[in-house]
């Protein structure tokens, strides 16, 4: 069993511990202790967790790419350490772990960490979001402009992050009032109408499908390209806080030659 201390910086004060707790539970980790400090930039949270070493990499990846997490630092837990909680000096996705369980950091985690720690992309994102709120739902020009100016290695994680912020905002504005719906009804009554505010979208079973995504572009690609829409759908469903952590996969994309872009939901 591994005991790890995770330091997480987030913009979100509300619902953060619940969201992180769901990731821990999903990876069979136990929360032993947590501390929290509010800063000007948001929240700094320290979690001491215990769980199977085999799941540590998956846990770090999911936390590092979580839409509520700006940066993540992981390290071995020292029960004798009495230092107060302070912001990490240079947030990295993964710090010194015991050699036996030293995972390699997924590129996506690093991309999110660097997008979240005040880099140029982060500044552009924060500058863009108020404009998105003003122009909503006519937002694709600005969002695609942002995507084009991003480093290719950061594009996926950052665009998912932007999409998640917008999706969460749309949920709070338009869909927060009503019953707690199970996933299938949430897809039908929240994700689908939210997506329809942006694009013509159809529901096929529990899969959302659109033939109008502007992110597919003219160039062919072997990988799905609609990262913003993935993040948007995740944000619109995760903001409620009672579904568990919903992740969205793009199982077909027009950039790969498919007729439409299809999104499936997992908890």
């Amino acid at each position, binding site marked *: 069993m591994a005991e790890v201390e995770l330091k997480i910086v987030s913009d979100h004060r509300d619902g953060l511990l619940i969201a992180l707790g769901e990731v821990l539970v999903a990876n069979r980790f136990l929360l032993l202790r947590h501390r929290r400090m509010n800063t000007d930039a948001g929240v700094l949270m320290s979690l001491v967790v215990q769980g199977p070493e085999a799941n540590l990499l998956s846990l770090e990846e999911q936390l590092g790419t979580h839409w509520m997490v700006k940066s993540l630092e992981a390290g071995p837990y020292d029960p004798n350490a009495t230092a107060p909680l302070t912001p990490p000096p240079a947030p990295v996705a993964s710090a010194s772990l015991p050699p036996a369980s030293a995972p390699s950091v997924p590129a996506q985690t690093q991309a999110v960490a660097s997008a979240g720690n005040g880099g140029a992309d982060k500044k552009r994102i924060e500058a863009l979001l108020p404009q998105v709120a003003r122009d909503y739902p006519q937002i694709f020009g600005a969002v695609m402009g942002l995507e084009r100016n991003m480093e290719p290695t950061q594009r996926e994680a950052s665009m998912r992050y932007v999409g998640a912020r917008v999706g969460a905002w749309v949920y709070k504005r338009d869909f927060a009032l009503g*019953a707690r719906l199970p996933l299938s009804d949430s897809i039908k009554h929240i994700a689908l109408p939210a997506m329809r505010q942006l694009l013509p979208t159809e529901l096929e079973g529990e899969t959302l499908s659109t033939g109008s995504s502007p992110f597919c572009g003219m160039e062919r690609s072997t990988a799905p390209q609609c990262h913003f829409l993935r993040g948007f759908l995740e944000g619109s469903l995760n903001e409620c806080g009672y579904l568990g952590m919903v992740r969205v996969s793009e199982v077909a994309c027009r950039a790969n030659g498919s007729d439409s872009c299809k999104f499936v939901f997992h908890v």
Partner: protein
Amino acid sequence: MPHDHAVQCIHDPVLVALSFLVSVLGSFTALQMAISIPAARTSAQRWQALLAAGAAMGGGAIWAMHFIAMLACRMEIPVAYDPGLTVLSAVFGIGACTIGLAIAGTGVFSWSKLVLAGTFMGLGVAGMHYTGMAAMRMPATTMYDTNIVAVSVLIAVVASTVALWLAFNLRGWAQMLGSALVMGVAVCGMHYTGMYAAHFMPTGEDAAVATAGGLVGEYLGMGVFAVSTLLLTTMLVMTMLRRQRRAAVTI
């Protein structure tokens, strides 16, 4: 069963229309309060939303509608209303609706919860109506066609269930307006079907004796006016606050 000597109740169409308007207004106010129950963060917020919604539904949409409709019912005999039973009818409606809304607003939405909540709401509508009818003091007795009474209760339960589904399951305009309109149909549909089921047989009793101690139309009208005004004000304030809150949501 023939009721050749039954007193006729002729409904004033303007007041009938007003009764539907008040039931829709009250339902809108109540259901807009109710859909914030699941989002309540503290027990106090939850209870506040629940009790306000129950009061708006039972007291506003149902009780006020019923007595506007009773004022719309013109009969050849004088009618007064027993104060105790009149208040009890409001308590009954508020209580049953509060329970129904609590069921619908708790936990994850499911069909079984919906049916149970709709049943409580429908029974609240019907219970308020028939308690209100029992409050009538007049030189006549009321006889009911039980088959039509059963239909009236069924209308209340089915329409309440649909209204709750619209209110809690959907989002947006369909949620807000659709649920209020359907609930208005539940309340009015139940009431006017229940009135169709009722036959008023004159007893020949002295009218002054029969109506002694009861609330007459003018006082009842003032009470109903006060409730309706409160409902309208609450609805307007709530709509304004919701609009402000929506505009204040940051991205």
